[in-house]
Structure formats: structure tokens, C-alpha cells
């Protein structure tokens, strides 16, 4: 089955890349942008008995490698 893992920076963690993108968008004249935070998306093909098993395995993947839980949160969509 197909899954998507989204990794984002935790609130309060400074995101210089997001800030730079925010500044670039403003200078391009895109109006109304008040904040940009950059994250990562992983599209994953996973085989498992059912979606809860898949979710459990992906949780392990996030905890072990995909996210650095000191600074990042993750969410899993199946």
C-alpha cells in the first residue's frame, strides 16, 4: 500500500530555510504570506497485513530514522 510520511519542525525551533523562503516570496510580490516553515514528505510503498500494521512499521521508521525527534514531529497517512 501507499503511505505518506510528513516530517515538520517542532514549534519554536528556528527554521532559517523557511525564513529565507518567506523573504523570497515576499520579494516576489506574493501577498499575504505571514510565515513559512519547511518540512519533508516521504512517499513510501509498504507491504503489511493491514493498515494498522503498516502504520506501526512506519512509526518505527520515523522514530529510528526519518525524523529527528529532538527537533521534528512526524505524521503518517495511509
Amino acid at each position, binding site marked *: 500500500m501507499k503511505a505518506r510520511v510528513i516530517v515538520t519542525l517542532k514549534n519554536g*525551533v528556528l527554521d*532559517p530555510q523557511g525564513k529565507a523562503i518567506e523573504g523570497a516570496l515576499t520579494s516576489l510580490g506574493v501577498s499575504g504570506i505571514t510565515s513559512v516553515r519547511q518540512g519533508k514528505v516521504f512517499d513510501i510503498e509498504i507491504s503489511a497485513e493491514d493498515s494498522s500494521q503498516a502504520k506501526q512499521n512506519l512509526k518505527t521508521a520515523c522514530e529510528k530514522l526519518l525524523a529527528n525527534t529532538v*527537533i521534528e514531529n512526524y505524521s503518517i497517512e495511509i
Partner: protein
Amino acid sequence: MKSAVILFPGSNREGDMIRALRQATHQQPAIVWHADHELPKRTDLVVLPGGFSYGDYLRCGAIAGRASIMEAVRAHAERGGLVLGVCNGFQILCESGILPGVLMRNAHLRFICRMQHLSVEQINSPFTNKYAARQIIKVCIAHGEGNYEADQTTIDRLEGDGRVAFRYCNAEGVIGGSANPNGSRNEIAGIFSEKRNVLGLMPHPENLIDPLVGGIDGRGLFDSLASAA
């Protein structure tokens, strides 16, 4: 002093590191491949050199931090064995959880490669005992992700336990402000583990061991290590 330098795909400072270790310890360090599971017997010091392991994919040091040799490095550290991580090596130590915190993108988003002064903040360690307290040393930095960050509890613990090894400063020894090249929390350039047997730092002391190439302020670290075992 028997040392072992771990080689990851993308390590590129191992040559400088081996030269510095050989100069101080008069012994040839072993080179250990990341896919190995064991360190050479009776290894005193494990070194994770600088570079761009796995091309910095995912996060700097993230994939190397989970390489099979890292279990042996962790066990060595837990036994009280010495571990040194420089630059990418520091990032790998943080990613593997052997040291707390994380190295984030430099605050101004630029890769910085230049000379940098440091204040030696803690000399009571096997890595720094040949320096004088608050000695100002001039070494070099070369990194894009050296902005040390950790939660407040961790920072308080590091500060309270005297585990900040080096801080960025200017030539006069003034810490902070424009002397901080990367936005690092509390101007932290390097930290120790709880028992001070593990040191991770962003600057490259291994490049400052020869008067022909800019100075010898890095020698203190290797001379400290050489006398430790």
C-alpha cells in the same frame, strides 16, 4: 594510545585526522569501515572524522549515525572509552544519540569556511587538559550545519555540569555576538558526554597542527589525548 578512525562513504577529513593522531601518539591509527561490527581490540580512542557522510542525505549524519559500526562505538563510549567526533563526526554523534542535541543549518544559511577563535571552556577532560582554562585558540571551521540546538533542559544540564568544551569567541576572547559564526545556542562549538569521555565539536583542530599551515593551536587536543592512555 591506540586509535581507530571510522570511515563512512563521504568522509573526507580522515587523512588530516590520521596525520594529527600520528604526530601526537607516534602510532598509526587503524582505519575501520562503517559496515564493520567491531572495533580493533584494545582500541583506546575512536574518531569520527569530518566530511559529508552519505552526501548529507536526509539530515547531516543521520544515516551514518545508524551504521552498523555505531553500535560498537556506542558500547565503547558506554564502557568509558574515548570518542572524538569532529564536524560531520559531531553531527553523527548527535544523530546516533551518543551526544544530546542537534546541529542545524547555520543561521545565515551559508557554508562557512574560515579561521575561527575558540575559548577552551573546560580543561578537566582527557581532550583538553593540555590547554589553559579559558585559553583562546585559533582553529578553522568548515560547515553548513553547525548551529547547535537542544531543548532548554539539555542546555541547562550541559552548562551546569561543565560539559561545554569550546565556545566561539573573537581574537580578544569575547564570546558571543558577531563572534558566533552559525547561530549556535550559547555559542557552543563543542560538548562532552556526561562522563567527558566523548567530545563532539564543529571546528577542525586536526588542521592546526603544523606551523607551515596556519598554526598549531589544535595540537593541545591531540597532546591531551596522547597523554590520556
